[in-house]
């Protein structure tokens, strides 16, 4: 067993009574946590619970108003990230900080170059140390490969290698599995356990309860800036953790109920879609969704899902093929025409397509309908009507904000997503296109949004759900299509599909069975 560090041991890191107050918000309210050498300590909490602030304090990005940080029992002041790194604290961010055109080795030594002389980097020494680390911890990485050619999971390992190269004793991983396939997640867990065995301390931040239960030696739950509880995986359950996090009982798996599937609503035939630089992303794709049905599209990010969704919504042209919605040809419709034809859209990148952070909530709620009654009379806006409708939607969709005139950017991630949902779901829809609708959200918001999606399904909308979150796909879909390199390589029944099979299809484009058949053929 790893990390059965005995309690008498001096913690590698101790944060005592950390309080951080931002104007109007107490982000951390007397938080005390510790991590022992060789321990994997998970930090669990909703969006805005204060995990990020706490880690910023640790990393020298924010100064606490009160409290103390101790490393190996010694009180320290951490001035800035460079200071934190010097003291052996490293953070692996959700968004990797790598230079794609540099090799693995170059990225690893960047910023901490071993110099052969004042001018040239000692590549040989650097390569030797990298090779040694890779061997010791079982990294499967070629030091000379360009980072741009690596998969997301491999890039993450480069980040961790970078931390090890800097002799990190305490590693902070901020939602490390958010972008990984199930197989890659398993690999990273193996690596993390090896690091813990080596005596390093790991702080693991995540929303995913089952992962935390699997990997952590100890779990600290934070809510509204305070430590609510501490658990060991053996003595808790997902339900217990979710309740601690949210403060009430949460349905972890939506009861998706019975789908009442009717006739075909969306039919996509032979569509070809090009990428930004004219490269063919989707060679030819067919799919059909019936009214009242949820079709989940599983796939590793970057296999053409974005392009498919954008084309369906009218933001990207079809190079070939036809799209039929409820019996009408809607090929080549503009975003507004699609909207008027009864298509709702929840974008994957809500900051890019979904909302305007600098605009108030009420303006964001009319982004697609500002020009028509009742929000406009002729060329003039009807602000009274817009405000009234906004007030009503904020209440109905439980968007937590002091006022509808607040800027959308001031909302938490979950509430921003609710804002998008409130705008798009507010009318009877024929087709609902969802691109990662719950990415980065906490369990409470996910529960809410899943219920809203099912409500739309129940009144007869066809739902296209694109998600890298395999659990979400498995839970919500009547049918599952796996997308790989611009093609739907398999369509499975949502009730009988097996998670590991879908994962394998996502990663390789073929299942074990198909591969076995291919090998014998």
């Amino acid at each position: 067993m790893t990390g059965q560090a005995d309690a008498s041991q001096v913690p590698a890191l101790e944060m005592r009574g950390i309080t951080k107050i931002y104007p109007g918000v107490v982000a951390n309210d007397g938080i005390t946590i510790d991590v022992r050498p060789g321990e994997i300590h998970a930090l669990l909490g909703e969006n805005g619970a204060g995990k990020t602030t706490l880690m910023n304090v640790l990393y020298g990005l924010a100064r606490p108003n009160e409290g103390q940080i101790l490393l190996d029992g010694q009180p320290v002041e951490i001035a800035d990230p460079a200071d934190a790194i010097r003291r052996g604290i490293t953070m692996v961010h959700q968004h990797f900080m790598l230079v794609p055109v540099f090799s693995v080795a170059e990225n690893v030594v960047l910023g901490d170059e071993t110099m052969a002389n004042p001018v040239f980097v000692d590549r040989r020494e650097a390569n030797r140390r990298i090779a040694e680390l890779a061997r010791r911890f079982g990294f499967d990485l070629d030091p000379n490969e360009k980072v741009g050619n690596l998969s997301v999971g491999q890039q993450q390992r480069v980040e961790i290698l970078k931390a090890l190269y800097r002799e990190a004793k305490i590693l902070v991983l901020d939602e490390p599995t958010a972008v990984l396939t199930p197989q890659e997640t398993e690999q990273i867990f193996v690596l993390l356990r090896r690091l813990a065995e080596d005596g390093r301390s790991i702080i693991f931040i995540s929303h995913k309860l089952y992962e935390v239960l699997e990997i952590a030696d100890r779990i600290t739950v934070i809510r509204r800036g305070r430590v609510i509880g501490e658990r060991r995986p053996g003595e808790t359950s997902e339900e217990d953790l979710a309740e601690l996090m949210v403060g009430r009982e949460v349905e972890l798996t939506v009861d998706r109920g019975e789908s009442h599937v009717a006739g075909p609503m969306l039919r996509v035939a032979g569509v070809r879609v090009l990428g930004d630089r004219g490269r063919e992303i989707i060679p030819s794709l067919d799919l059909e969704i019936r009214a009242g049905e949820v079709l989940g599209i599983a796939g590793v990010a970057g296999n053409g899902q974005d392009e498919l969704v954008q084309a369906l919504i009218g933001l990207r042209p079809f190079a070939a093929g036809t799209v039929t919605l409820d019996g009408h040809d809607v090929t080549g419709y503009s975003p507004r025409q699609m909207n008027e034809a009864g298509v709702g859209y929840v974008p994957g990148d809500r900051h890019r397509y979904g909302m305007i952070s600098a605009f108030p909530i009420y303006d964001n709620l009319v982004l697609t309908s500002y020009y028509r009654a009742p929000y406009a009379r002729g060329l003039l806006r009807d602000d009274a009507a817009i405000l009234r409708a906004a007030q009503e939607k904020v209440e109905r969709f439980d968007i937590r904000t002091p006022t509808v005139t607040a800027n959308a950017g001031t909302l938490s991630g979950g509430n921003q997503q609710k804002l998008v949902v409130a705008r798009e779901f507010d009318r009877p829809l024929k087709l609902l296109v969802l691109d990662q609708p719950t990415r980065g959200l906490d369990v409470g918001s996910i529960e809410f949004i899943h219920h809203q999606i099912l409500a739309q399904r129940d009144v007869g909308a066809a739902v296209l759900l694109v998600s890298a979150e395999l659990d979400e796909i498995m839970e919500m879909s009547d049918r599952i299509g796996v997308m790989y390199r611009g093609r739907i390589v398999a369509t499975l029944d949502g009730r009988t599909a097996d998670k590991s099979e879908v994962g394998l299809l996502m990663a390789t484009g073929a299942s074990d069975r198909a591969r076995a058949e291919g090998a014998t053929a």
Partner: protein
Amino acid sequence: MSGAPSGGDRQRLRQALGDIALLLVGPVVAVALALLVGAVGIALFSGLLPAGKPLDVGLPARAYYALFTGAISTQTFVYATPLILAGLGVALGFKAGLFNIGGRGQFLMGALGAMTIATWLGTSVPAVVEIPLALGFAMLLGAISGFIPGFLKATSGAHEVVTTIMLNYILADVLYWAVSGPLVPARAPQPITINIQDSSTAALPGLPVIGNLGVVIAVLAVPIVWFLLYRTTLGFEIRTAGANPDAARYGGMKPRRLIVLTMTVAGLLSGLAGACILLGNDYQMTPGYDTTVGFDAITVALLGRSNPVGAFFAALLLGGMRAGSGPMQIQAGVPRELVDALQAIILLFLVMNVLRHWLGSRAARGAEMAGIETVTRTYGRESV
């Protein structure tokens, strides 16, 4: 609606006042810092001034006093007029995410348009006909000058910063050509146009206290532009396209069309600025006729936080500084060019976004508006 304000109304009011305070703090800090730097400069260099004595710490106060009292004059309004109009043009561009540096060329085309009508019609028609015609033609030429870079950006992606700067040179040369030949009266001894006050009916009538009719036009333009931006669906489209072009496209708007439209209206406003100053103040042109209004308007728009009302007050401030600079030179002996330096320092502090560094990101986020980002963002990665 009940008579007494409800809790929600009061909260909204409080938030609105808070927003305004956040908007004001940046410009006020920038102006205050610039005045401070100016004061230090005056004191340091006081020994170099004629009749000055070394390190005269009282001199800055005397100079600013003269600047302030000198600004209480009709000239403030006259100087502010083109700054208001051109400043509105730049501010409108900022709202749409466009950096219109073409104010100079657009202004010159406006002045040229007004001069063309005045020369052509002379005294043959009454002022009530000639003035609207002159203003209208000025707006048309200004609008065309704005349309060109807008069209180029929408169709080819050519950046408006580059095209408007290039167009400034071209349009200044167009004016040079026109005033060297076509607009010179037959018997003129040198290339110079008619004097509008003497030989046409296009001169803007003078008004007590505020100067002339141009001031009224500029002041009227403020609520019109405000209404366009905040009360019409078109204004919402312009602001959305500026704040997030991708979201605008998803919302069914047409960012390319909005770019062309916004640049055209911006050009129209700058052209009107040129006409107002020509018909109300300058009256005559030589081939080298030129202006700094196009660039001052950028300061106005930034200082006014890209808001029409803000731009109005910013223009009054800069106009006042210009009006007071003469009295300052006479009474305190400080060269009037100090005002140019002050204006430049204000702009520097604005663009440096001192607030972001001083107040932390949260307050700065609230205080930030389209203008600064449009100026300071990295160019070349927009998706239009």
